[in-house]
């Protein structure tokens, strides 16, 4: 399944097929290697992508938990008392999203290595493997995702994962659908050069500056690349 450049990526086309059955207003698919090496698929919802950026900046939230623990995380109302105090306090009051379901994208289980082999059935009691990213569905009203809807989303996440690993193997995924978004890496490289530090240290500085200036990590990176924020100001905050 290959999409033309103007079409949504195939993963989002598959998601669109079950949108009516589950019901969501927004959806984002994020592919991630770790918390700072990540990218939303082209065509994902910008508002949810921004909410993911905020979680990346603060290092807490439902997306990080789903990615880390490999299990779905459902939030009935983002304005209710949540187990992520920093995120709650930093979430813009006008964020339109209220209910979310976050599904980890796991390496497809039971992939046969030989076409002659039968697929191996995953045991539900088995612990999850490392995740490829997360899929987040959001509703703009308080309308909690039901167990049945989360079950459908879990199957959808499995299909999306299979598509992702297939397209990653051919190089198409990164080349076509996530490549343009390298702002954070570029800004980290600039700051690393300015400080004579590693990229990891530079990202820590960027994160600290983003937190104190009320921006997201990617928002700050974009501002640095646009010249709105000087690299020197991030390196040596006043």
């Amino acid at each position, binding site marked *: 399944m290959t999409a033309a450049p103007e079409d949504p990526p195939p993963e989002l086309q598959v998601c669109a097929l079950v949108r009516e059955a589950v019901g969501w207003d927004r959806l984002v698919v994020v*592919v*991630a*290697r770790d918390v700072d*090496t*990540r*990218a939303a698929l082209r065509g994902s919802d910008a508002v949810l992508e921004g909410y993911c950026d905020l979680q990346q900046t603060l290092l807490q939230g439902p997306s990080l938990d789903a990615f880390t623990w490999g299990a779905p995380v459902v939030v009935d109302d983002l304005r209710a008392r949540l187990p992520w105090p920093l995120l709650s306090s930093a979430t813009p009051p006008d964020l339109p999203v209220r209910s979310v379901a976050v599904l980890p994208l796991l*390496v*497809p*289980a*039971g*992939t*046969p*290595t*030989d076409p*002659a*082999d039968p697929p*191996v059935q995953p*045991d539900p009691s*088995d*612990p*999850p*493997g*490392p995740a*490829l990213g997360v899929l987040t569905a959001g509703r703009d009203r308080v309308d909690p995702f039901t167990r049945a809807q989360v079950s459908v989303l879990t199957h959808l996440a499995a299909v999306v994962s299979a598509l*992702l*690993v297939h397209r*990653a*193997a051919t*190089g198409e*995924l*990164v080349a076509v659908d*996530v*490549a343009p978004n*390298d*702002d*954070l*890496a*570029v*800004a*980290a*490289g*600039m*700051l*690393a*050069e*300015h400080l*004579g*530090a*590693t*990229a990891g240290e530079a990202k820590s500085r960027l994160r600290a500056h983003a937190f104190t200036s009320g921006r997201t990590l990617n928002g700050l990176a974009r501002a640095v*690349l646009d010249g709105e924020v000087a*690299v020197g100001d991030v390196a040596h905050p006043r």
Partner: protein
Amino acid sequence: MDVENRGTHASSPAQGRSSTADGGDADGLDGLARDLADLARALQSAASPQEVLDRAVTTAVALVPGAEAAGISLVRARRTVTSAAATSLPARRLDELQTELGEGPCLDAVFTHRSTRVDELARETSRWPALAARAGEIGLPSMLCLQLFVDGDTLGALNLLGAEPAAFGDASEQVGLLVAAHAAVAVADARQLAHTHLGLAHRDVIGQAKGILMERHRLSADQAFALLSSVSQDLNRKLHEVAADLAATGELPQRPQPRPQTGPPHRERRTQHPEQR
């Protein structure tokens, strides 16, 4: 000839694990089932492809009757055998010898057979004469080689080595095939995950390298990318490799220079040495 090539598929747990050839009582079968379930969980929860491989070889030695050592070999282009994981030196030495001599079970038999049993390598003088002559360098005489995956000219194999001649019986082969089936799924998963993560990692390191060049030389993003691309072409190296070098050392890999006629080479340093970072 003491080699038995078996095209058998993985046995069901009911055919079981036993220290004797075909015994397998109920307790033994229960124990094997538990061990295999534990193996599946351990492999699935491994954090990296290397951890998957390391756990697979360690568990194979623990579960397969007669196994003294184990290794996972990757064969590329039916010519180069590398050790992806090994419990001890003999398993690595087997791979080194196969590459050096251009013969051995991983270079032919394991490509076409799920399981290849070698009772005594030193006696394989007709099939692998050069390897048989140097079998003493491995130090473990018998082998059980199990196919993990075949992808064109690339092979993954789980090799088990025994301390005695004919150390592996039918039970060893049956348990070995079950362990290999679990390991094969885990290895395939790990390879898929690595593919996906690698694409992101390359994009990240190329971005960092662009940022370094932009800051250092006051270039635009496009100019920085063009400079990286040009060095990559001049050196005939992949873009992400050039970028990784720059990100790690602070130095762009040097383009080939004409050798100076006299005097020592001079190289200007623009940044701190990486050890000073």
